[in-house]
């Protein structure tokens, strides 16, 4: 096999980024095998049976019935050692961030993470807070890659058929050094951001807690809800259920009014489905402007109060 795609089980179904990783693998070209691990491995492999890949490898063992980093590392390591793929790919998810560096360390295979596109010279990755892109290459015979959300479109998956087989792993309990408890979800707020039509969203550009009422005032005159980037939540300025992004919620409003948000990928994945993105930022090179429909270059602390005044007069 040329490429091994390590799949992710997202509560019983195939993770969206795993599908995108298969598209990435198809674009890299060569024979592709996909690896499904755990209790849901056979259900996940059923989803894949209509894709154009060579085969699905499933691993089931009680020590990896659900995700734990030590167990997964060992499984992926054994599959790589036995099958010698040239390229190992996965979606750049939290889980990949967690176990892939371990695989890299154990097998001494470089891990190039968070790739946004392929170029003929190498792999393109965002650097310096997404203000610049870098082309990265490796002279090694084996490499590990992870693809950023939306690097590839799952609709471009090529269909076909593939076979499936079990892979026997040799695991024993001593390999699992840490104890992982069952995942849980923290209590949700009383506002449903995910179905909000209009969102006024604030970032670190709001500068201090005293300025937060500005956002709520603007939201009130517009009939919108307030959402925020992570640093605003981390500072304790708004409740955590208002956070948009990879560790918060996914929103798709008619208007996403972004105020003083830079547009980091972990934020953007949660809001790029918005129908209209209107962004104010004082930095004309802020990455948020790359996805905005309207880019206002200016100071929110100057513009918002005037905007509230004018809206009240409408």
């Amino acid at each position: 096999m040329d490429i091994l795609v390590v799949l992710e089980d997202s509560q019983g179904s195939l993770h969206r980024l795993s599908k995108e990783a298969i598209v990435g693998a198809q674009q890299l070209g060569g024979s592709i095998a996909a690896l499904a691990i755990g209790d849901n491995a056979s259900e996940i492999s059923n989803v894949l049976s209509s894709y154009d890949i060579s085969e699905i490898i499933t691993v089931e063992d009680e020590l990896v019935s659900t995700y734990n980093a030590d167990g997964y590392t060992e499984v992926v390591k054994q599959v790589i050692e036995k099958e010698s793929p040239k390229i190992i790919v996965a979606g750049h998810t939290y889980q990949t961030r967690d176990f892939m560096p371990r695989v890299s360390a154990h097998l001494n295979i470089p891990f190039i993470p968070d790739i946004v596109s392929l170029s003929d010279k190498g792999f393109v990755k965002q650097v310096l807070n997404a203000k610049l892109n870098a082309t990265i290459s490796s002279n090694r015979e084996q490499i590990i890659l992870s693809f950023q959300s939306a690097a590839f479109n799952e609709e471009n998956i090529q269909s076909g058929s593939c076979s499936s087989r079990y892979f026997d792993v040799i695991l024993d309990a001593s390999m699992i050094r840490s104890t992982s408890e069952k995942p849980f979800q923290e209590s949700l707020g009383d506002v449903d951001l995910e179905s909000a039509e209009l969102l006024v969203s604030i970032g670190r550009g709001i500068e201090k807690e005293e300025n937060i009422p500005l956002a709520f005032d603007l939201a009130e005159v517009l009939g919108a809800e307030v959402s925020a980037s992570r640093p605003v939540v981390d500072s304790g300025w708004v409740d955590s259920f208002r956070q948009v992004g990879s560790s918060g919620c996914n929103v798709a409003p008619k208007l996403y009014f972004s105020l003083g948000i830079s547009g980091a990928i972990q934020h953007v994945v949660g809001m790029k489905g918005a129908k209209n993105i209107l962004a104010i930022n004082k930095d004309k090179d802020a990455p948020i402007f790359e996805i905005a429909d309207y880019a206002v270059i200016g100071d929110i602390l100057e513009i918002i109060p005037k905007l509230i005044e004018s809206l009240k007069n409408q």
Partner: protein
Amino acid sequence: MKIAVLIKQVPGSESALPLNDKQTWVDESSVTYVMNPPDNFALEEALLIQEKVDDVEVVVVSMGPARVQKVIREGLAKGADRGIHLEENEEVETDPLSIAKKFSDVLKEENFDLIFSGLQSDDTGMGQTGVLIGEILGMSTATLAIETKLEKDQIKIKRELESGWFQWVTLPFPASISIQSGLNTPRYPSLKGIMGAKKKEIKSVLQELNTDQSQNIDNIFVPQTSKQTEIIETDADAAVDRIIEILKSEIKVF
């Protein structure tokens, strides 16, 4: 107990980022540097443990050219006991495996019980160095901690998963853990701390450039936008007028 905190010096979020002549990285001479923000949270977490538990030594460790001594001093001023500087001369390495091996060589003899690192750096964003080092040194490892609880011979951490999910994981010592931003409020150094930091030890270990990088940044460039964006760059009053027009006639919010 000994805790190492890995700290990187990175361009600040407001820094100018002109490309260097070869277009392989930014022109270092025009950059203003800061402590990588996630590392600041990692340092704070170690200092909080030091305040709560007897006999904890906190050591800040950074790799880079002479300029990185500034963030090591900053760590010392906040309360770390000593510093280790893996000093690079000419080119700054970006290959995580090579960097991790260098850290491991230097940290091996120190036998740290815990290594804390920020979950990723704001410059290259590789997000793996802390885990690589831990694995090379045979430690237990975990990522994305947003809460830590020290127990006897082990540490319990709350890990952040996707979309508001969490998980508790218990790791036996020694452990290398990457820390997610926001789990504490990093302190500012006091004047006394700043004065005291001048007397604290920073051990420098000169690094030779590894010419066999397992991955390499060949060039950097400004990303192209794909979307049609209307750019509104005028004074605040005109901007407000245009925004109201957009809300009313184009997005039809009211």
